[in-house]
């Protein structure tokens, strides 16, 4: 799966990339700001994204999330402050709260991988806070 990482801390991004690749995915881009992220989305068309809320240009991760949601690309927020995320999660699958553990991240990755393959029978791990159920119109 083609994955984008949006994170303004280079070390955290690097380590997250290693975990994502270890789980058998390709990282198609790393962004530290809103514009960088949108550039990658439009050019690389990732199939999934990890999005930090607070980037170098402010709490613009929310905008990135909105951009992904508009294109139907699933993603999760990765943040130290869940309260920063709007109540409807702007279309995100859920959120991984920082500081996550290695096990917590791997379990979340595993769950996301299964779900994107259409396996809805699996239960989300404690490390992944799920978005509120969406009402269908």
């Amino acid at each position, binding site marked *: 799966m083609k994955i984008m990482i949006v994170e303004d801390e280079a070390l*955290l991004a690097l380590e997250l990339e*290693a975990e994502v690749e270890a789980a058998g995915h390709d990282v198609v881009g790393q962004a530290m700001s809103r514009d960088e992220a949108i550039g990658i989305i439009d050019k690389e068309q990732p199939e999934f994204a990890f999005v930090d809320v607070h980037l170098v240009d402010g709490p613009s991760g929310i905008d990135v999330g909105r951009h992904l949601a508009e294109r139907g690309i699933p993603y999760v927020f990765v943040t130290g402050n869940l309260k920063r995320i709007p109540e409807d999660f702007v279309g995100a699958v859920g959120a991984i709260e920082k*500081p*996550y553990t*290695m*096990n917590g991240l791997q379990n979340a990755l595993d769950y996301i991988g299964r779900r994107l393959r259409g396996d809805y029978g699996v239960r989300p791990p404690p*490390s992944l806070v799920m978005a509120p159920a969406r009402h269908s119109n």
Partner: protein
Amino acid sequence: MTDSSARRDAEDAGRRLLAEHASEDPFAAAFKATRMPMIITDPRQHDNPIIFSNGAFSDLTGYPPEELTGRNCRFLQGPNTDPESVAKIRSAIDEQRDISVNILNYRKDGSTFWNALYISPVRDRNNEVIYFFASQLDVTDVKSKEVQLASAKQEAEAAVAQRTQDLVDALEAKTTLVHEVDHRVKNNLLTIASIVKLQARMSTDDTVRHTLRSVLNRVEALSTVQRKLFTSHDVGRFDVADFARELVVDIVSALKRDDIVITMDLSPVFVPAVKASPLALIVNELVGDPVRRGLSDGGGEIHLSVKQPNGHFVIEVRDTTEPVPVNSEEDDFGRLMLETCLRQVNAKLERTIEGRQTIVRVTLMVDN
């Protein structure tokens, strides 16, 4: 009509009034001698002039009687007199009825006094208004106390409002600071973990990798405390049961074995924030130990219980595993971590081994 002729008319009217009352008339005597400032005006003359005033009125206003007779009372008004009070007096006179009003008046020397004015029409047999009678009372003292009181109240209210705003600002600054510090602590903990993981990933030496993973495991236990402490509504308290549940599920899930059975018996046990880290490390060792002793190699059962029966706080981990040889160095380190943290929170540990089953029970008293 000239001013002087008007005054003459007023004086005449005053004299006529006096003529009706012999000097021994007690009412006239009382009017003249009373300490209450009083005047009489004649509405049948042009502009309702004063036709008589007493000594107390001159004492109050500073005007001698000859400067009073023939003038309308409005000369007592000044720039700070409330026009609304003046209008009330005027309409009472026009409508020929009583009025009582507090009005700011001016003395001859320009000084002011608060006048509790009372005006009442005097009627003859035919019910015609022939005079107006007015009494004055200097209420400056009362009025100034009222003003003082009002301004003191206003000052107090302003001070309270200022104080409240200061507190709101201080709280906001403090909240911002706490969030900022929390953000940094979380990021730093995650960065520390990332550094350890990166080095473990780059190393080809199994022992180095193993050691770094062991360090990472303890750092992550502390990271989780920081995450859970701040997520809860009550930042000062930490739920050990909630932490234990997440830890055991995360560790066992990451092993990706379907031959491990987890059972749990948990009820919320809150401890003060200062005890959160040592308790998290204790739970971490209690769960990590059976994983190292056999769960990760051959599966098995793990039962976790966190409870608080009658004041005692009990954490119990019961496992059934096929034992595998352990790395003695790692085992010693785990034991040292556990014993040190137990001493930190003054808890005691019992270990029971029955065949393949190991039961470890940690007991400590929780402060109310």
